[in-house]
């Protein structure tokens, strides 16, 4: 008790001689979450400013004799003439491992009702991305657990891979699957006690989404045991445009902390179309000049400075990484719209999801022709390369041939064989939502495909056949799967073991 009294006495002693210097001004106008302020001569760009009642704003427009600021949170109590103070600090959010398993708002404050977050560090929301010298090329894989992606459009740690498609094509599902897969890998890796194992922590940033959608995503992550390795940043549709604008940068700050501390992190921005729309709203209210589709001129920079923060840094800088999976929603599959083309040009590849494929029941509805990974193949493990090297080409040829085959029934044997194989690959890549597949199981199934074990199985039974083979490998050949995972390549020994195992399965599969 005496220490508390001493503490208060100390505070009073400090206060008795202290003169507090602040830079203040008066509010001119407040409306739509934006305040115009007369004065604030010493305010910095992006500085936090304090309104009455502890409300925080960010100074975004520094004009000759006025400051335009966005108000974060409730602005109904603000009025003309209110005193505004500079805080002298740029906007920063709490970071650290204490944030894992929590749901926070755009300012890093908990919104999940689980109490205060125990963390001591904070990190600036806006930060210049790592430079050339600090970086290293992508050379470690990041498994999504989705066969079609891991085999054909591989993603590496530190890569920015765009997920793009119309509404309801499974964009979020791919991102959530990837987060679940990281949690599954983390559990296995941490349990193995391998000192070289590097877990991947995930950050899911929900921008402008319905609260019910965020709740559903949270439910899935919790059910699959992935929430403990994940931080959710939520700026739902009901939040102000300022909060929606800030949320991705908050997520980037959370992820960058892991990277700066030599760890790996994955960040999902769901989605940047809504982020751009929120920024447009804010810019129009701030009376910034508008350009194409009424977006402000710096909408490219809005996303480029965000996505450039995802990187793989070299050993001298901790060897950490931040992988980004931004999501963009297109309208009627139009990839050439303003925001999609911007983000396509910034990222290191894209996974394009097609409505037609989705409606045909091909899920995930990945369009092989339009999807690409520009840097990920360097990070793909050798085992996957060995078994899936030609699959993308075969599948692309199949799609092309299938279109022509509709016009005639008289096909030569070679074309028919290509069509048969393509149809089987399509079936093989079908995968239910929230059910990522471990890479060693993917290798096993693709090895069987490559070695024609599925050729005599009816196309309609392909999904059950691949499920059955995976179940067989998991339940009966665990040692083989462990060997594939550890060696990460198929040598002669593994090849013969795989042959024995798949032969055994084939005999049992009716």
């Amino acid at each position, binding site marked *: 008790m005496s220490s508390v009294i001493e503490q208060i006495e100390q505070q009073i002693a400090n206060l008795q001689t202290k*003169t507090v*210097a602040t*830079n203040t001004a008066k509010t001119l106008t407040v409306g739509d979450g934006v305040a115009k302020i007369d004065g604030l001569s010493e305010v910095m760009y992006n500085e936090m400013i304090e309104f009455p009642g502890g409300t925080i704003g960010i100074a975004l427009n520094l004009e000759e004799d006025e400051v335009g600021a966005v108000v974060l949170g409730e602005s109904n109590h603000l009025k003309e003439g209110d005193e505004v103070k500079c805080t002298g600090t740029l906007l920063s959010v709490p970071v650290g491992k204490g944030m894992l398993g929590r749901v926070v708002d755009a300012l890093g404050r908990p919104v999940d009702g689980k109490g205060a977050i125990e963390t001591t560090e904070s990190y600036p929301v806006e930060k210049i991305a790592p430079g050339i010298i600090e970086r290293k090329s992508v050379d470690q894989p990041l498994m999504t657990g989705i066969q079609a992606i891991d085999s054909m459009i591989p993603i590496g740690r530190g890569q920015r891979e765009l997920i793009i498609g119309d509404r309801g094509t499974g964009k979020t599902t791919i991102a959530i699957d990837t987060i679940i897969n990281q949690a599954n890998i983390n559990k296995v890796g941490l349990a193995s006690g391998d000192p070289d194992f590097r877990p991947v922590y995930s950050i899911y940033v929900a921008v402008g989404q319905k609260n019910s959608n965020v709740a559903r995503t949270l439910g899935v992550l919790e059910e699959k045991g992935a929430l403990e390795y994940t931080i959710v940043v939520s700026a739902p549709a009901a939040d102000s445009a300022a909060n929606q604008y800030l949320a991705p940068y908050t997520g980037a700050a959370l992820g960058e902390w892991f990277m700066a501390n030599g760890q790996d992190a994955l960040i999902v921005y769901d989605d940047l179309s809504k982020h751009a729309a929120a920024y447009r709203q804010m810019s129009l209210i701030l009376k910034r000049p508008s350009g194409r589709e009424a977006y402000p001129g710096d909408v490219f920079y809005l996303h480029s400075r965000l996505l450039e923060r995802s990187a793989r840094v070299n050993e001298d800088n901790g060897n950490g990484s931040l992988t980004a999976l931004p999501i963009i929603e297109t309208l009627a599959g139009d990839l050439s719209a303003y925001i999609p083309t911007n983000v396509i040009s910034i990222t290191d590849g894209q996974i394009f999801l097609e409505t037609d494929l989705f409606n045909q029941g091909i899920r995930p509805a990945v369009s092989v022709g339009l999807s690409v990974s520009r840097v990920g193949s360097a990070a793909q493990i050798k085992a996957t390369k060995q078994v899936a090297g030609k699959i993308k080409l075969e599948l692309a040829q199949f799609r092309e041939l299938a279109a022509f085959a509709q016009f005639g029934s008289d096909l030569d044997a070679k074309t028919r064989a290509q069509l048969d194989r393509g149809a089987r690959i399509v079936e093989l890549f079908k995968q239910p939502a929230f059910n990522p597949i471990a890479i060693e199981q993917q290798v096993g199934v693709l090895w069987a495909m490559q070695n024609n074990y599925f050729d005599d199985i009816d196309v309609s039974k392909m999904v059950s056949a691949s499920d059955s083979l995976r179940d067989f490998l998991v339940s009966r050949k665990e040692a083989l799967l462990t060997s594939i995972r550890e060696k990460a390549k198929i040598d002669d020994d593994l090849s013969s073991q795989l042959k024995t195992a798949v032969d055994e399965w084939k005999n049992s599969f009716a």
Partner: protein
Amino acid sequence: MKQDKQIKKFAKQLLQVSLEGREVSAERVDGVLKSLANNPPRHHIATLKAYLKLVAREVAKGTAVISYAGELSSDMVAGIVNQLSAKYGRAITSVLREDPSLIAGLRVVVDCDVYDASIASSLASLEASLS
């Protein structure tokens, strides 16, 4: 929008004419006002309002509003004015205001800058740090 810019620009020109060195000259302001009255510009009232705003801001830069509670000696006021004049590199005049809500101490406002050494603000920050 364009009109606003023109008015602001004209008001700034009027302010430049009203300055003597870095300070607003009462004589020059009087001259400007007379000239405007004799030759009223378009948007006369709006121009005058914009001019008033600029002059008020300029005057505020050279004025220290000293709010106090309790005793305040003239030596102390002179000391404050001297220190502020040195800090801002211009002549600062003082305006004294008694403000019992400060409980004790001083609060000096020069344009946007507030120097608060009052008990009221100390108690407020103590309250904030304890909550």
